[in-house]
């Protein structure tokens, strides 16, 4: 049975590989995003030494690694699920002998593997050539970051799957998906590190799952969080991973009972 799921990873990876040309433009555009953010922050820092606990050098590294982490964890599982629902093909997939949600997760991971090897790594190399990115020397920072990056993927995919499954209840969830994308980019700390938000807002954001996607791994990589602290922030990720399983399975069950096919 597990072999079948492994095939989902492999097939998606190969499909992505067939379209790899698209991702070379992606690397350039992500680098441009990093560049623009880098210059904006540079203008903000001016002569200042530190903002929200970030030195200017840490901010550069944070911006670069956050965008490149996004290159890895980003996927369109929400849109895929919504499309399956709209064209009715989900009915067929529900009666097949595998768990639909788990299969989607595996496909997402296949895509993630592709994005990691052919998008994130070369992208990071290019970003390091262009901007003064400082890689951490501490092996614990590397190990912590890589493990946390995997959980970023899991949590982001969980949120995507939940958004996608909501299409069962609102029929056309285009707006919802767009809203999710915006919320994730802003509240995960990709655009602004969470510690720079005003106090009341950052304390709210610390109670939400989004910080686990970008801000926490980024903090480990830039060395803002070290030693035992790495275990603490990793703990936050695990807790969110566990909590998000609840709405995920509840929605999946409710969805199976609610299924009505609009077309196809």
């Amino acid at each position, binding site marked *: 049975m597990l072999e079948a799921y492994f095939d989902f990873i492999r097939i998606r990876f190969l499909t992505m590989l067939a379209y790899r040309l698209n991702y070379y433009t992606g690397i350039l555009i992500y680098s441009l995003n990093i560049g623009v953010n880098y210059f904006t922050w540079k203008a903000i820092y001016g002569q200042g030494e530190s903002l929200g606990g970030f030195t200017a050098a840490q901010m550069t590294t944070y911006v670069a690694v956050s965008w490149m982490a996004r290159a890895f964890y980003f996927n369109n599982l929400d849109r895929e699920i919504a499309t399956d629902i709209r064209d009715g093909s989900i009915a067929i997939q529900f009666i097949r002998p595998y768990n639909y949600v788990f299969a989607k997760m595996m496909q997402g991971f296949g895509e993630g593997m592709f994005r990691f090897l052919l998008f994130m790594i070369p992208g990071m190399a290019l970003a390091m050539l262009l901007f003064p990115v400082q890689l951490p020397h501490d092996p614990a920072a590397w190990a912590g970051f890589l493990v946390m990056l995997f959980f970023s993927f899991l949590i982001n995919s969980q949120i995507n799957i939940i958004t996608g499954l909501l299409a069962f209840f609102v029929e056309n969830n285009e*707006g919802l998906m767009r*809203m999710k994308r*915006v919320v994730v980019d802003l509240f995960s700390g990709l655009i602004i590190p969470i510690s*720079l938000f005003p106090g009341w807002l950052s304390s709210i954001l610390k109670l939400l799952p989004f910080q686990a996607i970008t801000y926490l791994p980024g903090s480990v990589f830039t060395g803002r969080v070290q030693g035992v602290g790495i275990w603490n922030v990793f703990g936050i990720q695990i807790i969110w991973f566990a909590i998000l399983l609840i709405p995920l399975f509840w929605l999946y069950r409710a969805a199976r009972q609610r299924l009505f096919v609009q077309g196809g």
Partner: protein
Amino acid sequence: MLYHLGLLSEYLKNYMKTRLTYRADFWVEVLSDLLFQVTNLVFIFVIFMHTNTLAGWSQNEVVFVYGFFMVPWGVFACFVNMWNFSERYIVKGEMDRILTRPAHNLFQIFLENVDPPSLIGSLIGLLIMAVSGFNLGLPFEWWTVPALILLTISATAIYTGIYTTLTALSFYSDAPTGIIPLMYNIQSYGRYPVTIYNRAIQVLLTWILPFAFVGVYPAGLFLQREEMTRMALLTPVMGAIFLSIGLFVWNRGVRKYKGAGS
């Protein structure tokens, strides 16, 4: 012209009918658009919590530029929406249907994807300009409104040109290109004072992907930034150039279309 306006009104009626079927989603979509704009404003406000000026621009000025940026963007998103072009028209082969009809194919595609709620963003942009303009004590001249209209049309033409060009690339490549979603990230940088970027990015945002012309340059005219007046007046020219490029590439691309769907 009359024929095309007639088509537009028919499509808008049709749009209303489909929208009434998915009523709950309509408001979510309006809200998500606004939320996206709020995100960018939040970014500006957070920046100015940590600094007083951004390369010599005050908070009100940056917010004003953002307000202007929202106006043409809303118009563009309403009338020129090609987000899903490749999946819908090429992969599924709907382009065949378009090509058998009398009106120009690009015009039909624009019509089929009209999105009037986007205009709400333009209204909010005007409101933001009014508020921050008032805070800055900007004078209201006789040319303010005509210039606003002209610059909005020009900026919309720039967007249309760029996105039409990029969309037309999908006639040449079999796979959906991932460029357009990524471009949505870049375009927003034209709204910051371009002077903070290094030379390469400034050149890119001015001459290659001229997103500076849909935000900071035209807004500079109203903000009475001497150094940007010349660029602001160049906006209509850039609009004409990029729109022509877009139409040219599109028309060449359509000839390449072979019909992939069933």
